[in-house]
């Protein structure tokens, strides 16, 4: 039977199409859920402070459109105005024009707001609430109505950017701004310079670099010894190594802190590097790989008089490139994202030695009401792993799988 071409006879083309469509709908829905927080982060990190607090939330960063109008030195902000029943985009030329609130003497609740200079006294009077008040000619929707003044207010003067003489007066706070999609990279500049992100990015990079190089080196040496050299106590030691992989890190946090006090490494980047250079996991991973390298090549090299170090360097390392990349990826993520240990060991006041996660923690308190700033910081910490993930996706996923294939 040609099994790979086998189809269930009851399954029609149509139902297969439907199943696939359903599969894609579910997959896409989850993909959206997985990506949305990140998209939200990038979008918000480019917003202005006001825009962050807009409700309903708008996904893309927006800012008010401005326009350069002849006769005005600065660009003017744009608002929507009502003119002759139409909605038009006008420029705000003057923020506060003194205005009066006017109403017909027989219907005092039907008020209109018009600039003081446009309402002209017509010499007549009307009795309102037992008092005699002057009547004024007030232009309302192109008509002149005779009204009394009942209050004072301020209006904005909006002009048509194409024809500055065309004016509309209305309340600025109640006017809807004209928005356009934009982006504010200033948030990133600010967190990098003012909020210490630049320095902590350097620190994190340095720490990660040292941890990855150190851990790969010790793991390769140890893994080779476990995989290829016979010595008494080897297998027992390996079992001990395996057993410790299960022990959670929090077990070590108190004694390791004491150890750092003893070494005088508290508050120093050294405390973030050296304890993480020696791991059972990395040794295990390299050992599992080295054990698959055929013995014959090594034996031939030994007979030729090569030293163990030469064999490791010339034969095992080149072959182990994928395993090395996997280990490096795993270690990179661990070192880059770690938070608990830096929180414990680096003093809050010692900004110079803060790593990214610590700076984010500080930022959370200092800019607690500025989502745009906080999320710009988060983006800086998340972007490097993300870029690496896009470049070397395979190794990330393999490092995940390798942690699972122990059975």
């Amino acid at each position: 039977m040609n099994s790979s071409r086998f189809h269930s006879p009851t399954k029609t083309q149509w139902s297969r199409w439907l199943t696939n469509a359903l599969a894609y709908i579910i997959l896409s829905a989850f993909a959206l859920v997985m990506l949305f927080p990140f998209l939200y982060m990038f979008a918000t990190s480019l917003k202005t402070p006001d825009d962050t607090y807009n409700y309903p939330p708008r996904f893309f960063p927006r800012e008010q459109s401005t326009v350069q109008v002849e006769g005005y030195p600065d660009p003017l902000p744009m608002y929507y105005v009502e003119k002759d029943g139409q909605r038009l985009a006008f420029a705000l030329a003057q923020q506060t024009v003194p205005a009066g609130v006017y109403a017909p003497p027989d219907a005092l609740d039907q008020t209109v707001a018009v600039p003081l200079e446009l309402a002209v006294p017509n010499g007549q009077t009307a009795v309102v609430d037992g008092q005699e008040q002057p009547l004024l000619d007030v232009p309302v929707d192109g008509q002149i109505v005779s009204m009394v003044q009942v209050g004072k207010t301020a209006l904005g003067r909006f002009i048509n950017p194409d024809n500055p003489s065309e004016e509309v007066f209305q309340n600025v706070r109640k006017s809807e701004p004209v928005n356009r999609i934009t982006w504010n990279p200033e948030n990133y500049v600010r967190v990098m310079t003012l909020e210490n992100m630049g320095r902590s990015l350097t620190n994190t990079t340095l720490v990660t670099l040292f941890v990855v190089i150190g851990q790969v080196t010790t793991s390769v040496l140890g893994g080779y010894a476990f995989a290829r050299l016979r010595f008494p106590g080897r297998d027992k030691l390996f079992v001990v190594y395996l057993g410790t992989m299960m022990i959670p890190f929090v077990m070590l946090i108190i004694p390791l802190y004491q150890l750092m006090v003893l070494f005088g490494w508290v508050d120093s980047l050294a405390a973030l590097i050296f304890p993480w250079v020696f791991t059972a996991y990395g040794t295990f991973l390299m050992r599992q790989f080295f054990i698959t390298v055929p013995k014959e090549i090594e034996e031939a090299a030994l007979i030729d008089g090569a030293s163990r170090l030469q064999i490791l360097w010339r034969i095992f390392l080149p072959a182990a490139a994928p395993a090395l990349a996997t280990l490096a990826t795993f270690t990179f993520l661990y070192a880059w994202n770690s938070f608990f240990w830096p929180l414990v060991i680096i003093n809050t006041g010692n900004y110079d030695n803060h790593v990214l996660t610590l700076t984010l923690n500080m930022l959370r308190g200092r800019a607690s009401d500025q989502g745009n700033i906080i999320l710009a910081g988060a983006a800086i910490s998340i972007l490097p792993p993300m870029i690496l993930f896009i470049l070397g996706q395979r190794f990330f996923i393999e490092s995940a799988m390798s942690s699972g294939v122990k059975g």
Partner: protein
Amino acid sequence: MTPALDVRSTRLTQRLIQSATLWHIVAALAGLAAVVLIAAGVIVLNLPAWLRITAGVLLLVFTGASAAAAWFLHQRKRVGRSLSLVTNYLGFIVSLLALFQFLGIFTGVDALADTFSRGLWALAGVFLGYLISASGDRFHASIDTEILLKKIGKYVALASFIVFLFLVGLVDGLLYLARQFAQPTAAAALFLTLVFGFMVWALWREDSGIALNRSNAHTETLEGYLFLSPNLLGFLVFFAFPLLFSFFVSLTDWDAFGNQNFIGLRNYANIFTLNLQPLDYAGQLMTEVMDGSIFSELLRFNFFGKEFLLGAKDALFWISLRNTLLFVILTVPLSAVPALLLANILNSKIPGMKVFRAIYFVPSIAATVGIALIWQWLYNASIGYINYFITLAVTFFNGTFGAALVDPQIRWLSEARTSMLAIVIMSAWQTMGFNTVLFLAGLQNIPKEIYEAATVDGAGSWARFWHMTLPLLAPTTFFVITTTTIQAMQVFEQVFIMTNPPGAPANSTLTIVLYLYQNGFQRFRQGYAAAIAWVLFTVIFLVTLLQFRNQRRTGGGYDM
């Protein structure tokens, strides 16, 4: 090799062995003297008592090993060489590290971080050099071009790296180091490093090995431990020793400043002491049935019509344990079940599967701190997207179906009812993709033939999933559930970032690790915190054991 040279070389070897013997006698005597002087209090070590004892014991071991090495070397026995190599190698490592420590090389990383960014552009030059060198591979046709490009690339990278070293302050650093040698301790460490190093070299030589009857198995053993030594030593210092030490700390009332008294199991007793008392009537004050200065109220319950009150010496621990278990019970299925579904869909080999797999994986590569910050804003009660989506859904239902749903306007992180749920949702979201990849790996390991046979037998897709995929996937499922559980038991960062102050509101998000952190590093009760860590470890161990037994019972015969 001429005979004359041969004789001279043999004489050199013999002389080296003799000097090593002499050195070991001197080292043994010096070690013994040091131990005696320390014990007599002549040399005052500014160290805590337990450490002085450890140092003394290590010195004694060194003395004994050194004396034995001298004796066996004198006898020209093979074991003498091994002992000598091991003691000298360890002495070399210890004095080298001490030298580094005195010179301030370890803490010098901070100074490097100061200047590192100045040299970054030069590192870009190294990368450029690599690119030039790599581009040489494209010119396989003309060997000359290939070699030329590789050479140029190498020199560009090297030159850039030298520029980088200068920019980050290599000269200043070296000058600083040179000045440090004026310290007597640094000079002594340097001297010891050189002596130990020389002695290692003297006996490691091929000729010395031959003179002392080395065998192949013997050499392999030495090489094995040599290769393992960086890892093993680091592992002992930074893992095995702290682990044992942690247990010792848990038996003391250690604060963060080094004051400690041995108090036996009192920390553990404090954690576990509970007090159950019947109440005369519901609503009776707690202080009427137990000592309020020792116990605080944990919960009241009604058992067969009788009111009871449960008090605990450390009620917060029990609250944190309850919260942690709640978190685990909710997070594990919430991240594993959708992952299983997604993995099954992805496994059907539809086009674009790799893209989806990659997308699902993204949350697990980002820092939990960053993710927690994002979600904190998504959860924002007034402007957050989550409440906005709920409002949209409510409006939609009310408008389309005429329902009269009320917009809940949940204050996610500031209400005790929902705060833990909020953390659970976020954590499940974060681990789901990782679990999907694990499940997918497990599914791809199941042979296709089994399914095809079942399809012939007329099994529907649901029956196939239920009766074949799940049992065959049992090892992966076990692994996913175990790792997710172990991770979830240690939940800390999410809570620490998202709730303010951490654990709020009303201790509803106080987890064990957070409680450990507060005890160890805010109240400086490190002994107590260490005890909590061991309790947590025991809980994790028991849960894992339980799952392991469960898996053994239900697990299929298919072994990965």
